[in-house]
C-alpha cells in the first residue's frame, strides 16, 4: 500500500483490519464462500494492506460482499469487515466510478431523488380508511420503501404494504394513532451500505427534518434496516439527532407484558419457519423478542433451520448491490432447508428477504409448496 494514502490507512484502522489474525473464521462463516465462490475476507484484507484497493481481487470482493455481518459476529479479533467493505465502496464511488448494482441501480436512484428538498411524494395511497393516523404527533410509524417495492416488483405479485397495514392495525389496537407521512423520505440504509456517503448524508438530513417538522419524538418501524439506520447511523451523521427508534416487536412485547388485553391472541394452527434478517440478528437483539412473540401465539409450531438466529444467512443480496449466481445459491439453500422442516409458511422480518426469496420461489417453483409472510402480518392474523 502506498504510504501516502492516508484515507486508506484511516479505513484500515477504523475497521480494525490490522487486528486480523488470519484464522479464517470469516471465510468459514461467509454465506458466499459457502456456495463455492473463491471468496475470502481475510485475503482481501491482507491484499489491501499490501497493495491497496486497486487489486482486481479486492475490487471484485467489495461488490460481491453481502455486508450481512456474519463474519463480523465470528471474528475473534473484532474486525469489522462489513464496515471495511462499505468504506472501500465509498472510496470507489468518490473516485468517480460506478458501483455494481442490481435492478440497474433503480432503488438507489429513488433514494437520491428523495433527498431533493422540493419533492412532494404521494406514498400513503395504500392506507385503508379504517386505519387511524394523525398529521402531527409524538409517535411516527415509519413505513419505509414498501409502497415503492410493490410497484417496482409488481411481477413478483407481492404485497409488502400489507406489513405497514398490519403494523398500523396493531398500533391502533394499542391505542396509538401514529403520524404517517405522505412525503416520508427513505432512511437511506442502502445508500449508506452501497458506499454513497454524500448521498446518504443529504438524505439523512432531509429525512430527519421532514420527521421533526411533524412534532415527532419517537419512530416506530417494522423494518429491521430502518431501525438499524435510525439507531446506529443517524446519530453518527447528524450530531443533533434526538429521535428514539423502536421496533414494533419491542412495542408489542411491552404491551403483552403489561397485561394489556387489547392484543388477545387466537389459535393459529400452522407450522412455520423463521428467517432472521441480517440487521436484526447480527446488530440488534430484537430477534429474541420476536421468537418470544411468535411463541405466544397458541398452536403456532415454529420449526427452526440450522441457519437461524446468530447463524442466520443473508437472503442473498443486500443494499441492492449485486445479485447473481451465488445469491441464487444462497436463496435455494435457505428455501430447501425450510421445505425440509415440513413448514408451509416461511416467516420473514425484512421486506427485502421477502422480495428476494419470493423471486427465487417463483423461479424454481417452490411457491407451490411454500408461502411467505412477514412476522407482523402473522401476528396480525393471530389477533382476536
Amino acid at each position, binding site marked *: 500500500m502506498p504510504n501516502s494514502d492516508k484515507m486508506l490507512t484511516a479505513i484500515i484502522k477504523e475497521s480494525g483490519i490490522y487486528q486480523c489474525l488470519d484464522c479464517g473464521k470469516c471465510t468459514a462463516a461467509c454465506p458466499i464462500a459457502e456456495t463455492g465462490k473463491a471468496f475470502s475476507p481475510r485475503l482481501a484484507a491482507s491484499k489491501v494492506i499490501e497493495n491497496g484497493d486497486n487489486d482486481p481481487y479486492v475490487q471484485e470482493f467489495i461488490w460481491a460482499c453481502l455486508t450481512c455481518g456474519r463474519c463480523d459476529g465470528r471474528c475473534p479479533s473484532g474486525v469489522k469487515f462489513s464496515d471495511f467493505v462499505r468504506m472501500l465502496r465509498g472510496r470507489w464511488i468518490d473516485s468517480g466510478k460506478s458501483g455494481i448494482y442490481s*435492478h440497474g441501480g433503480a432503488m438507489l436512484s429513488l433514494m*437520491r431523488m428523495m433527498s431533493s428538498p422540493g419533492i412532494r411524494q*404521494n406514498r400513503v395511497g395504500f392506507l385503508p380508511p379504517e386505519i387511524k393516523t394523525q398529521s402531527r404527533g409524538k409517535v411516527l410509524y415509519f413505513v419505509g420503501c414498501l409502497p415503492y417495492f410493490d410497484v417496482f416488483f409488481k411481477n413478483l405479485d407481492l404485497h409488502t404494504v400489507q406489513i405497514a397495514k398490519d403494523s398500523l392495525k396493531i398500533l391502533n389496537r394499542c391505542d396509538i394513532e401514529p403520524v404517517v407521512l405522505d412525503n416520508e423520505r427513505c432512511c437511506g440504509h442502502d445508500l449508506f451500505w452501497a458506499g454513497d456517503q454524500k448521498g446518504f448524508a443529504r438524505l439523512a438530513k432531509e429525512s430527519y427534518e421532514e420527521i421533526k417538522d411533524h412534532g415527532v419524538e419517537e419512530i416506530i418501524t417494522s423494518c429491521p434496516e430502518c431501525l438499524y439506520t435510525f439507531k446506529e447511523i443517524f446519530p453518527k451523521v447528524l450530531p443533533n439527532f434526538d429521535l428514539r427508534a423502536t421496533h414494533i416487536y419491542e412495542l408489542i412485547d411491552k404491551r403483552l407484558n403489561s397485561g394489556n388485553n387489547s392484543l388477545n391472541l387466537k389459535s393459529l394452527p400452522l407450522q412455520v419457519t423463521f428467517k432472521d434478517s441480517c440487521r436484526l440478528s447480527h446488530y440488534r437483539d430484537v430477534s429474541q423478542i420476536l421468537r418470544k412473540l411468535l411463541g405466544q401465539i397458541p398452536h403456532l409450531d415454529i420449526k427452526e433451520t440450522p441457519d437461524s438466529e446468530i447463524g442466520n444467512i443473508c437472503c442473498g443480496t443486500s443494499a441492492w448491490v449485486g445479485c447473481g449466481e451465488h445469491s441464487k445459491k444462497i436463496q435455494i439453500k435457505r428455501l430447501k432447508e425450510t421445505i425440509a422442516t415440513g413448514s408451509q409458511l416461511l416467516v420473514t422480518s425484512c421486506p427485502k428477504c421477502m422480495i428476494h426469496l419470493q423471486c427465487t420461489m417463483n423461479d424454481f417453483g417452490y411457491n407451490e409448496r411454500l408461502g411467505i409472510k412477514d412476522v407482523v402480518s402473522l401476528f396480525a392474523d393471530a389477533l382476536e
Partner: protein
Amino acid sequence: MKHKIKVLAFLCNWAPWSCYTGMGDLEVPIPGEVNVIRVMCAGRVNTALLLKAFEKGADGVLIAGCRIDNCQNGTGPEVALKNIDHTYEILNLLGLKKERLQFKYYLAHESEKLSSDLHEFVERIAGLGKSPIVGDQGNA
C-alpha cells in the same frame, strides 16, 4: 440561462435516429434544451434508466421508438410502452407529473414530425417548470 429546462430524448437507432439525422439534412431546427441519447432499441430503455434520467436532473424524458409494426427487434415499442407504464406508477409515488415522460413512434422519413414533437415536448415541459429533483449532485 441558469434555470433552463433539460429534456432528454432516447432515440432508437432505426427509424427515430434516421429522422434525427434527416433533421440536419432538412435544416429543421432542434430545440437547444434537448439532449439526445442513441439507443439500439426503444425497448432497451428500462425503468432504471428512466429513473436515472430524472435523478440526474432531466425535467422531461422522451422515448422515440419505431412504429409498432415496424420494429427491427419485434417487440421494442411494446416493451418501451410497458416500461413507461411501470415508470409512471413510480413517478406518481414520487410526486412527479406523468406528463414529464412520453413515448412517440416514427417512420424513418418523419424528420419534421420528430422536430415538431420535440418542440412541443420542450414547450410542455417548460410549462410544467423545473423538476423538483435536484439534479446531479456528484456521486453516481
